[in-house]
């Protein structure tokens, strides 16, 4: 996306359901709660939505999900799409919304992800892998991402104290967020004492599992000016995929964030030094560290020292995941990162507000650990 699209689209509404353990609500119940909250936030009626993009579910494996959601919301739409790029889907949906409006498909787009990740256990919806993994006891996203952390530790001397600093910072932020799933204070000692899941990851290196949904509404900057909230403009958009896989080349230690971020910064006309707050896709502590390096907030290999000393905490140089992130607020596959960035730029974050936040960076990373998307937002 070129610089001509800078600031041409805006996020005008954000909303979320309850996050955490919500056994009494269905998947659609959570999703509709998020949609209603986003519509109310924007001051829009459901009939104003003429495009809908949803994440085709990891957990529910629901086909043509956007239609099923619109059916329950009670609207027909000009444009609808259910997409899947794992953890990169969140920021990618906002980009697809802008592209769809730019192409004239529709004018106001609802983007949504949500499900009962915690209290409904069914198959994970992944296509079954028949060979080259399970027979060796290789299962799950934790082990896959842990391979990257091991290699990063080997190449750059990254330590558990450094990974732990990330988890501790985000928990501090969650303690200021009444909606967060984890609000018990946590120390670096607590981090070190938490059990190994797949070494080198402790339990507290891993994101939560949550019931929850979140929605984001995108429209043109022009239309945004008439709505209830101050618009949050999309300055930069980037996306990239290390599609040859996590095991290939240097992909375990250099994420697609590098190229995705470069595109977003170029489009936005800003640099990492201009970013007031970052909301980074934190499926695992290590992905935060590597993302910050690959975005150029520090040099490659210096992410370890960079995240220490409170730099990522409120009051630090780069307040990151100020709602607690997926490590401590709740896991809605990156959507809450967009919600939090929007609220920070509107100045609505109360005790966890970054003073005078003007610009925010949001990331999504996933899809077998190699798909990435980036948004740079401003007030």
């Amino acid at each position, binding site marked *: 996306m070129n610089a001509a699209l800078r600031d041409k689209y805006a996020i005008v509404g954000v909303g979320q359901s309850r996050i955490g353990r919500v056994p009494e609500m269905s998947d659609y119940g959570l999703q509709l709660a998020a949609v209603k909250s986003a519509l109310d936030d924007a001051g829009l009626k459901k009939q104003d939505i003429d495009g809908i993009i949803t994440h085709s579910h990891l957990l529910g494996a629901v086909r043509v999900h956007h239609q099923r959601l619109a059916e329950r919301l009670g609207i027909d739409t000009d444009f609808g799409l259910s997409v899947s790029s794992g953890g990169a889907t969140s920021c990618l949906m906002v980009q697809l919304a802008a592209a769809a409006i730019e192409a004239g498909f529709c004018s106001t787009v609802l983007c949504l992800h949500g499900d009962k990740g915690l209290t409904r256990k069914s198959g994970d919806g992944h296509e079954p892998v028949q060979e080259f993994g399970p*027979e060796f*006891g290789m299962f799950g996203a934790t*082990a896959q991402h842990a391979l990257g952390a091991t290699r990063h530790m080997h190449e750059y001397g990254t330590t558990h104290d450094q990974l732990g600093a990330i988890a501790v910072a985000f928990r501090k932020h969650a303690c200021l967020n009444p909606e967060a799933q984890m609000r018990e204070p946590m120390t670096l000692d607590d981090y070190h004492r938490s059990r190994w899941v797949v070494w080198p990851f402790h339990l507290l290196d891993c994101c939560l599992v949550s019931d929850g949904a979140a929605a984001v509404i995108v429209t043109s900057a022009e239309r945004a000016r008439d709505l209830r909230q101050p618009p949050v403009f999309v300055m930069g958009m980037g996306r990239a995929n290390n599609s040859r896989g996590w095991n290939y080349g240097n992909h375990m230690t250099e994420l697609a964030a590098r190229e995705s971020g470069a595109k977003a910064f170029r489009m936005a006309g800003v640099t990492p030094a201009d970013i007031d707050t970052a909301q980074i896709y934190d499926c695992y502590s290590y992905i935060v560290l590597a993302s910050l390096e690959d975005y150029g907030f520090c040099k490659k290999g210096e992410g370890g020292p960079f995240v220490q000393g409170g730099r990522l905490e409120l009051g630090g140089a780069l307040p990151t995941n100020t709602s607690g992130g997926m490590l401590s607020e709740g896991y809605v596959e990156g959507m809450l990162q967009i919600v939090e960035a929007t609220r920070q730029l509107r100045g609505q974050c109360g005790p966890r507000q970054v003073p005078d936040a003007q610009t925010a960076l949001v990331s999504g990373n996933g899809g077998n650990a190699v798909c990435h998307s980036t948004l740079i937002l401003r007030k």
Partner: protein
Amino acid sequence: MTPSKPIPTPSEDSKPFWEATRNGELRLQRCLDCSSYRFPPGVLCPECSSTSSEWVPVSGRGRVHSFVVFHRAYHPAFANDLPYAVACVELEEGPRLLSNIVGVETARIRCDMAVEVLFEKINEEISLPKFRPRA
């Protein structure tokens, strides 16, 4: 009943790989046009898009690109193996594959450690290529 570990289901593409391991041999697919080795198996060379390839024996030597140690059983059949190591092994010929590192305490495994293949017979059809430290 004791749960059993997953057994690979060879695909049309990977059948020669598993036929070779059954015979105690590690073979990889090599492009007949650009000579590059590939893994996982497939009909197209990811380097030059050629559809011509052959399956050739490889050294079975490599190094640990990275590894993890499972402390939690994601499948009940692996509960008695905990803690066990899964590694991404880079073969001398280039491709990387996932396997187990055996014959060494997990605490002694390191990235870039030299390893060599050995075969663990599962049944008459399937033998798994695993790796152990190489002097």
